[in-house]
């Protein structure tokens, strides 16, 4: 019996030389990474080793060689202790549909080590947080896909983990449900202060929710970086004005800037700060309404290219 928290270290996860070999394939190939607390997006093509990585972190698989620690616990030797502080939301269906969400979440909380009274209290609380408070006594077979997905999130959250591992949390959801799920994930990460490692094949989702990105391919780490660094501002300034933009384009070209016109928007290469003066003067002289003046950010899709990740 232990009531103290896990050994606190600055790293959330450290993997060193993590390798998992199967007779025919190498799922992880000496992967070494140190992950800081936060919301981490795990990307990579199918079969890249994402699931293997998550399962090793959970202590569900033992690595062929190398070590992994989470929250200061050794993933192989302290798997049970570790799992009291980790929540896992698998990609596949995992709900017993013949019972109610409440009953299920209470049971799951207890199997994670919470005493019965605390389990009941936190089950009600968690189901409220994921927006299922009213429906919590209904059999889960009556739930929509979105509701089931939220129960899956709730079971990973109910024991107040320090880290949640979410495997494709938006799979099978319609755009509305997807938005709700991403908002929830973000809230859990930002407001509740629980670290999250979330796998997804949609870069847009990762960009929206995560602060770090970890990319694996063929079992190897390709990059682990802050998303803000990846999507840093570009040297392109976008100007949008009311009315005809051609005078502005002409003036900018005359001043020697590289300009691209795109309908009512103008993209100017930001080589030198004088560009701002030219735009200001032109807009003022011509009496144009300036709608937007913004330095563009790069998007993850552009960095990876369409086929690089999916």
């Amino acid at each position, binding site marked *: 019996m232990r009531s103290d928290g896990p050994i606190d270290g600055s790293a959330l996860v450290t993997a060193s030389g993590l390798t998992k070999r199967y007779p025919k394939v190498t799922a992880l190939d000496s992967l070494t990474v140190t992950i800081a607390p936060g919301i981490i997006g795990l990307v990579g093509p199918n079969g890249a080793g994402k699931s293997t990585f998550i399962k090793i972190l959970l202590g569900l698989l033992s690595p062929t060689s190398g070590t992994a620690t989470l929250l200061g616990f050794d993933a192989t030797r302290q798997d049970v202790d570790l799992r009291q502080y980790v929540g896992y939301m*698998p990609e596949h269906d995992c709900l017993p549909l013949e019972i109610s969400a409440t009953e299920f979440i209470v049971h799951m909380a207890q*199997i994670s*080590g919470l005493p019965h009274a605390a389990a009941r209290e936190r089950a009600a609380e968690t189901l409220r947080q994921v927006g299922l408070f009213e429906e919590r006594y209904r059999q889960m077979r009556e739930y929509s896909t979105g509701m089931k997905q939220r129960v899956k999130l709730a079971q990973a959250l109910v024991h107040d983990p320090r880290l949640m591992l979410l495997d494709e949390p938006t799979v099978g959801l319609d755009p509305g449900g997807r938005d709700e799920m991403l908002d929830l994930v973000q809230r859990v990460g930002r407001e509740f202060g629980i670290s999250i490692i979330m796998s997804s094949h949609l870069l847009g989702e990762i960009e929206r929710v995560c602060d770090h990105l970890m990319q694996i391919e063929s079992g190897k780490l390709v990059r682990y970086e802050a998303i803000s660094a990846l999507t840093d501002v570009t040297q392109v300034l976008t100007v949008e004005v009311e009315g005809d933009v051609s005078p502005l384009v002409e003036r900018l070209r005359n001043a020697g800037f590289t300009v691209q016109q795109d309908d009512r928007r103008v993209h100017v290469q930001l080589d030198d700060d004088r560009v701002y003066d030219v735009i200001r003067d032109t807009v003022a002289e011509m009496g144009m309404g300036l709608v937007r003046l913004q330095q563009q950010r790069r998007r993850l899709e552009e960095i990876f290219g369409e086929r690089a990740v999916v």
Partner: protein
Amino acid sequence: MSDQAGSIYNLGYQRYTGPRLGRRYAIRVLALHRLRACFGVGRPLSSKIFPIALAIIVMLPAVVQLGIGTFGNADAKVIRPENYYRYVGVVLALFCAAIAPELVSRDQRSGTLTLYFSRALKRADYALANFFALTVSLLVLTVGPQAILFAGNGLVVSNPASYLQDEWKQVPEILASSLLLSVMFAGIGLSVASFTPRRAYSTVSVLAVFILGSALGPILLSVSDQGIVRYALMISPFHVISGFSLWIFGASPEGNGVLAKADIPGGVYALEALVVGSVSLGVFVRRCLRIAT
């Protein structure tokens, strides 16, 4: 317990600072959960009907004997403890075939197994908790009627005190035979059921093992009851439980029955039950270690 239905206030997120009770607690919770599931406790009526009906049927022979003892001849022992499992063996096998899939096939089919394995348990713990639950349920179904029989017989005789003095030896005998049966049946049921995620197939597989074994054993014996071939009867679960019951209660098989024909020492049946129970538990644990999640 906070039950603030209809609350419109967002209270923010509360961290859990209480104790985390760990593995042993989780095993206990799971074992108890499974024990309740065996009898449909806390489940809708439809889940209760089958186990409760079988439990009642299993008690019937004991009740019949009580009736005979009460209204007829108190000394007439039509239903004897050493024969009890011969009468109800099929019912107990049905119970295994219905409940074992409920315990271990359902979790695989729904995918819930992954959630158990990613919590404060080891895979083997999951197996042991289920084995414990089914074994205890079977103990209830075996010790229960034997206890009714024992107590009933004691109450209808003219001198209960001397009955107790003469017959107390039955208590350890009842416990030993029930335990052997429960371990063996739970092992067979769970090991077979754990290989099929679909409950219907799982039930049929468990039944098939019991029925085929019990049909084939006597058939093989009828080919020859000489030499080593007569040990073929040991593939019949129902004859095995009869065999060790007779041995434990110190009785011998009736004149021209199959057991008498096979003439296998009773202790061999007991040993077999123990071995089958342990080996099938081993198979079940191994299966749990390997199920892909």
